């Protein structure tokens, strides 16, 4: 009972912190926080594939970019588009792209899966640069109107105000996080972990491995699309560099590895670590990628279980030490 209470209290506390965050830290840091939250949830969707299903994708950016471009183009071309349908469009477009790729990619696993995604991701990048009439080439799509969040007749909130946008972004991303977390607790979530550990056995038990993979793949793609969509609204600009570049694919992988594969919250901590490092190093040097690369190498060499793994290890040691102490006291 007390554990449950503690859980609700901590959730309430988190909500309170998020509520007062922009008032306390000001607009600059709340924008940094939105950027971090987008990246964190985007990394979570990648972890659905990498950590939970064991599928390494080097082209996850194509879903991020597709969501972002869909939102941007919809707002740019169609006047009077409301806010929520536009975000939903990002979700749907990414799911459609995933459905198109599904028949090809879910049959394979391991390195081939990663490499196919690298290729398709680059194809999307090249297309975004070349299909000028739709994507604006190198310039990207920018300066589109940001619609207000409105329920007709009841409420209308101006989204160009960074404070309002902060709450909107956090609400959408928080909801996405909750849905993803809930999904891992469903029976299909358990099958997904089974596929990671031993696909043959899951197949023998009568579950359809390829179908399950396809469902998870589309889900991860769709929520990556939502994060992309929020990103486009946040920046009011999307270009091939920000949407489809290969670094957009590698970023969440690094965050997941550094944070800890296999735990749900690992990517969030990984993203936090990366955001902090980027924020700090970019003040002193332009060589941010160099620092990131060195950190990645260091983590893979010395702490392949990532931040969450190290934390778990420390906790275990602490508990063991306490146990010894307690037994000594007896």
């Amino acid at each position, binding site marked *: 009972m007390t554990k449950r209470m503690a859980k609700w209290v901590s959730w309430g506390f988190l909500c309170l912190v998020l509520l007062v965050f922009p008032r306390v830290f000001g607009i600059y840091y709340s924008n940094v926080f939105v950027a971090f939250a987008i990246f964190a949830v985007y990394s979570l969707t990648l972890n659905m594939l*990498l950590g939970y299903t064991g599928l*390494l994708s080097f082209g996850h950016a194509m879903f991020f970019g597709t969501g972002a471009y869909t939102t941007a183009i919809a707002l740019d071309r169609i006047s009077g588009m409301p806010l929520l349908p536009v975000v939903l469009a990002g979700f749907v477009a990414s799911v459609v792209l995933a459905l198109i790729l599904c028949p*090809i990619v879910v*049959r*394979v*696993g*391991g*390195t*081939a899966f*990663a*490499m*196919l995604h*690298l*290729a398709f991701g*680059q*194809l999307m990048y*090249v*297309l975004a640069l*070349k299909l000028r009439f739709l994507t604006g080439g190198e310039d990207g799509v920018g300066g589109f109107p940001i619609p207000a969040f409105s329920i007709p007749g009841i409420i209308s909130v101006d989204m160009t105000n960074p404070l309002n946008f902060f709450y909107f972004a956090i609400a959408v991303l928080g909801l996405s996080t909750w849905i993803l977390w809930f999904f891992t607790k469903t029976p299909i979530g358990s099958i997904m972990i089974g596929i990671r550990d031993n696909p043959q056995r899951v197949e023998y038990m009568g579950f359809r491995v390829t179908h399950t993979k396809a469902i998870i793949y589309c889900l991860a793609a769709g929520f990556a699309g939502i994060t992309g969509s929020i990103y486009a609204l946040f920046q009011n600009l999307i270009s091939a560099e920000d949407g489809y570049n290969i670094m957009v694919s*590698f970023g969440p*992988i*690094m965050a997941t*590895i550094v944070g800890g594969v296999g735990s749900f919250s690992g990517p969030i901590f990984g993203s936090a670590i990366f955001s902090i490092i980027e924020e700090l190093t970019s003040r002193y040097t332009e*060589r*941010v*990628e*160099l620092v*990131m*690369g*060195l950190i*990645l*190498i260091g983590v*893979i*060499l010395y702490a*392949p279980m990532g931040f969450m793994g190290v934390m778990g290890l420390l906790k275990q040691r602490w508990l063991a030490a306490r146990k010894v102490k307690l037994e000594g006291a007896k």
Partner: protein
Amino acid sequence: MDSTTAMYVAQGIHGLAYGMILFLVASGLTMIFGMMGILNLAHAAFFMLSAYFSYQALAMTGNYWIALLAAPLATAVVGVLVERFLLRKVHAFGHVGELLLTVGVSLVILDAVKAFWGTESLYVDLPESLKGLIHVGGLEYPVYRLFVIGLALVVLFIMAFLLYRTRLGMVVRAAVSDADMVNALGINVPLVFMLVFGIGTWMAGVAGVAIAPILTVFPGLADQMGMDAFLVVVTGGFGSLSGAFIISLVFGELSSYGVQFISALAPVLMFVLMAIILVIKPTGLFGERE
């Protein structure tokens, strides 16, 4: 030969030269994949590093031939060090760790290059003997590109000889098909791995030096070549040298004629070809495994 035919022939040789350079990069990549089961994502970074080394060697000695010899060797040394001290240590953690490690190495090399040499284009000057045009039956063609084709052929023959006519080559081919069994037979497989990694990066290095005078040396050099080489490996079949060779030449011609006829969509052509081949045969043209 009238001027239109001459143009087509020139484009064809252009494509051949690019295809040969592409093969130098892709063959190292596919060999390393065959042995270790990972695609070395830092391969293009080594290629670029070698181009910078050749610029540096040329600036220091003023002799192109020394640069041509020294830069790939220096690159190979870096490659061997990366294999020995980084890749080998994470081998036990499985492929994902190795792949990500090469990503990390590639990030470090790409950014370190910017820190050392800056971001602007650097020019590599050719010696007098390689400058100028060659005239054959109404066709004018730059000597240097023919030299590049020749150079690639020489490397290709050395590699073919090593692989198919020596004991070492036999061991390498055996290790490609079953590393565990070769290890069990008492051959030092980690050493062979290191050697293959070194030779692979050396070939990428030769390609880097060869391309430096044509494209100039700049940090973006790795992007295009890395992606093309990777496409070659995927399309030709992971670990297949003959597949890499054929696809490299096809891609070279495709990009050369593609730029001439449909320049806007030329970069997409290779992806289209890859997608068609992969849908028909998911392991690539000559690949036997995924």
